[in-house]
């Protein structure tokens, strides 16, 4: 198990290194530099710009800048934001926390709904409830995330039931603890709804497919023949058997949720990594962009690593293979 975990972590490290390199490359190669806009401003003297350039190290070759950045990363220093004039690390921290909150809750909610729905549908395979659910899921799947988010936003604005953006109401700091939680919760409702609605169709389809296969399997029929009660058949036998594809799906869904969260956060003004990253890209704020992308990748990789370990624990066949390989 340890060896397996170490191997997966080594993969993860490789992945992160690759991502950081690519991001660095793309950002540096992308047209426009941070100071280009300043150059256009006639009020700023060229000497100032040159001084800023050397201060920010932008006059050095790419490879050197990457090496410097790596060294700094080893110290835990993510670089400096040109736009904010502050270290990137603390700036990202708050945003990352908010994104994690949003994605985490969406993940939980999406799976809590998808699992029972998928199982329910699989049990009635071929019947009209199954058909309706599949059609509904397909319909939702077609709608792009951004349209969903905007749609929900419009509903929120028109009806005024939910706050239309942001994370906290004005004057939140002065609220009591319980009231603050409720306040945050209300603000979460919109982005969570958008994210959940965008991922649920895929989840339900895969859960359904996994269960249709499992429910049809020889061992389930044999268990029925042994008189195992219905509920146990599904939750104990079925779920354990379907764990393999479902855990892989879990890992995948972390990825889709993270990427979906970017758009949703921007549309619903949720102060997470999304809007921050967007802003930084537009401003060519190099180190923020790299830091943000790297952070998202870390979340993704951690999610997948957790899924891998979970799979190793859940499926004894992978354990035997893992040992033999």
């Amino acid at each position, binding site marked *: 198990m340890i060896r397996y975990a170490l191997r997966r972590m080594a993969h993860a490290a490789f992945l992160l290194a690759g991502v950081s390199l690519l991001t660095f490359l793309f950002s540096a190669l992308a047209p426009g530099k941070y100071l280009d806009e300043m150059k256009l401003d006639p009020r700023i003297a060229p000497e100032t710009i040159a001084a800023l350039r050397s201060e920010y190290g932008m006059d050095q070759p790419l490879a050197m800048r990457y090496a410097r950045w790596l060294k700094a990363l080893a110290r835990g220093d993510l670089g400096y934001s040109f736009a904010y004039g502050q270290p990137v690390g603390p700036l990202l921290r708050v945003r990352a926390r908010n994104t994690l909150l949003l994605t985490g809750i969406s993940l939980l909610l999406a799976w809590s709904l998808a699992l029972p729905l998928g199982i329910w549908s699989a049990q009635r395979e071929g019947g009209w409830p199954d058909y309706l659910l599949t059609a509904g899921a397909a319909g939702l799947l077609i709608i792009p995330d951004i349209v969903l988010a905007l749609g929900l936003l419009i509903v929120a604005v028109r009806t005024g039931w939910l706050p239309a953006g942001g994370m906290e109401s004005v004057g939140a700091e002065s609220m009591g603890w319980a009231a603050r939680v409720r306040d945050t919760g209300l603000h979460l409702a919109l982005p969570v709804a958008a994210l959940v609605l965008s991922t649920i169709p895929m989840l339900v389809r895969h859960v359904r497919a996994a269960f249709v296969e499992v429910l049809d399997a020889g061992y389930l029929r044999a268990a*029925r023949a042994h*008189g195992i009660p219905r509920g146990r058949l599904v939750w104990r036998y079925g779920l354990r058997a379907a764990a393999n594809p479902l855990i892989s799906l879990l890992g995948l869904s972390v990825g889709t949720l993270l990427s979906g969260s970017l758009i949703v956060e921007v549309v619903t003004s949720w102060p997470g990594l999304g809007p921050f990253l967007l802003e930084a890209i537009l401003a060519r704020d190099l180190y923020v962009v790299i830091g943000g992308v790297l952070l998202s990748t870390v979340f993704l990789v951690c999610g997948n690593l957790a899924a891998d370990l979970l799979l190793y624990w859940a499926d004894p066949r992978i354990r035997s293979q893992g040992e033999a390989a």
Partner: protein
Amino acid sequence: MPSIVEVRDLHVAYSSRWSGETRALEGVSFALEAGEVLGVVGESGSGKSTLAGALAGLLPPGGRVVRGSVRFEGRELLGEPEAELRHIRGARLALIFQEASLALHPSMRVRQQVREVRRAHRGGGTGIDEAVEGALHAVFGADVARIGSAYPHELSGGQRQRVMLAQAMVCGPALLVADEPTASLDPVTLAEILKLFRELQAARGMALIFITHNPALLSGFAHRILVLYAGGVAECGPAKEVLRNPKHPYTKALLDCLPAWPAPRGAYARLPVIPGDPPDRNAPPPGCRFEPRCAARMEECGVREPGATQLGRAHSVFCFKYGG
């Protein structure tokens, strides 16, 4: 002695969208007493697996019992709600399927799987561990500790079959229905499993319905034999009679097909075969099912189906040669 199971005029059919209605079993009747072993001989398409499923109320989707009666321990099973049947299955009436490798849960340890069966019927609490260990011991003998903690994919075919047997036995059923339990095993393992079946059956005085396509396995083992052909009974009687002195032309032809042992007839000798193929179950021709391939067919055989003729005690045959 009271019959453990009594099947009367059982008709089972499958309906599906593309092939319409297929008659899988027609007019099957037999009775089995406590402690008796009934060997059911049937080839592919004979309906033997359907019979196993019908007895336990576990027909595949699309299958239904058209008419007939299945009485188990004096109680009519057909028409009973699923909740009731669930209590009987595994506890009083155990079922073993073909392909043990597919019938065991891939992510559960062996001991756990046997435990689940016992738990489902007798609940948790005291006695469950003993029952589980007892069942595992009965099929594995000494190696129980190691095998109990193993997963199915770590076991051989014969060992998996033993686990299935342990699961079937753990609640002490009155009847065990085994559908081709030795089908995918090599001869040495097959012989061991067969021996295990005989020992357990004798030790527990269980009634056993042993379904197979190879009649040779039943000699010296079954008390009675039921021969199925294309969904109907060809012959049913005491094992010795059916094997030594088969009455129905199909039974005779089938028994002739098997190469003799241990006296081979010599290379290049042709085995007697049953010409042709089994009938199409979707559009069965009129008359006796075996008629197109029967060496002894008469005019009547192509017109209507023969009924049962009683030949001696508990021996019936469905053939016009004997009346019909």
